[in-house]
């Protein structure tokens, strides 16, 4: 059968896998968010000990391949008795990885909020906690959106690595279909096109949000 017919037939199965991909991405980015903010705070406001700890975390995670981290979680942890399902290992691994990168984006955004803002906050009597919460954080969240959009798209792409630890996302579906039909190349062309469409739509969407939320003049 022709390529188009093949593509049409396998689309439903692939879309199932795509949903898993999207789930994976969303869970991972949320995990990354809740790791990233504290770590960024630790690097900007923490004492010596916390700073070193957070920096250590960021440097190691960013300095080693995601695939290795996934292997450690999925193949490595059983050695000490912890067995994770592929999906779990995937979102934990990708989530922690994203956390390290997000920490750096947040740190950059925090540091680009001008010092004078903090000083003004203190001068009207706020303590550090309040200043961070009401002045720094809101600005930081808006400044970080461009980097954060990048991160989301990177995650969509890197979620494909979950295939390597047997998570049932789109790549696994693809492989299964391929082993049935022996038309591996064409199946992956369809997968590539799905990613293309996914990433393009996501980018346009994020672009629009970015433009709406931009702080005027900054």
């Amino acid at each position, binding site marked *: 059968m022709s390529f188009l017919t093949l593509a049409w037939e396998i689309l439903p199965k692939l879309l199932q896998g795509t949903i898993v991909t999207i789930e994976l991405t969303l869970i991972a980015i949320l995990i990354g968010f809740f790791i990233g903010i504290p770590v960024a705070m630790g690097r900007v406001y923490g004492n010596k000990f916390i700073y070193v700890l957070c920096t250590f975390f960021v440097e190691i995670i960013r300095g080693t391949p995601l*695939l290795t981290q996934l292997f450690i979680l999925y193949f490595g942890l059983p050695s000490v008795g912890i067995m994770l399902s592929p999906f779990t290992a995937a979102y934990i691994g990708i989530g922690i990885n994203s956390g390290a990168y997000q920490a750096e984006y947040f740190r950059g955004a925090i540091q680009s909020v001008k010092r004078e803002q903090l000083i003004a906050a203190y001068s009207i009597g706020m303590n550090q906690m309040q200043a961070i919460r009401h002045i720094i954080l809101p600005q930081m969240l808006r400044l970080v959106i461009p980097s954060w*959009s990048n991160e989301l798209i990177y995650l969509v792409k890197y979620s494909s690595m979950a295939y390597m630890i047997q998570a049932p996302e789109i790549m696994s579906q693809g492989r299964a279909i391929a082993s049935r039909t022996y038309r591996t190349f064409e199946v992956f062309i369809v997968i590539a096109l799905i990613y293309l469409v996914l990433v393009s739509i996501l*980018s346009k969407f994020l672009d629009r949000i970015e433009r709406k939320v931009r702080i005027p003049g900054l």
Partner: protein
Amino acid sequence: MDQLNLVWQGLPSLLSGTLVTIILTIYFLALGFLLGLLLALGRVYGSRFLQLLVIRPFERFFRAVPALVLLFLFYFGSSFFRVDISAFMAAVLAMGLRSAAYQSEIFRGAIQSIGEGQMRAARSIGMNMLQSIRYVILPQALRLSIPPWTNEYAVVLKDSSLAYAVGVTELLRQGRYIVARTFGNALLIYTVCALIYFMLVFVGNQFLRILEEKYKIPGYEIKTRKDQTVLERI
């Protein structure tokens, strides 16, 4: 400890895997560099036609599709098109072209931040396009590119681990073999692999930093670009 002994015995394999990883990275970056430079020059100086029909679709495709998918496309595509290439070659093509798509952005940014006055001055003394690019634009653009290129180096080195998926015997795959052969402590062995990657990234970064210092243009700074759309940034 028994386990550490295992690692010690596995070291030769790991080192040969490391060597393959390094070679892969060099090939990826080299292909990415040469093609990326051409693409960047095409984006800045080329005709509209070339840009819209060739360069932009290329960049779009190789940046939106995940590296793993690209690897499979080239690996299985070679048999589909009845071209006989090794897994290694397929990996080099896939990851090299992908790196080209990212490096072209780096170089394009650098060239555009140089400012058109430089090109005008070069042309005004009678240099043709090729000479202007070679003697005036590129020397400056390459220097300005070093900081973002350092990031690309790290990404490519880490992503080389994906070559595992098409059977290339790089560092991670060697690690897998050791675990499979010896029923050894997977956690330990993969952690060792991770540390080796870390050292490779670290050493490379240091080297690039030294390069940056050595070729610094006295008194010059790169301007930042704020108005990119998301798709242009990834």
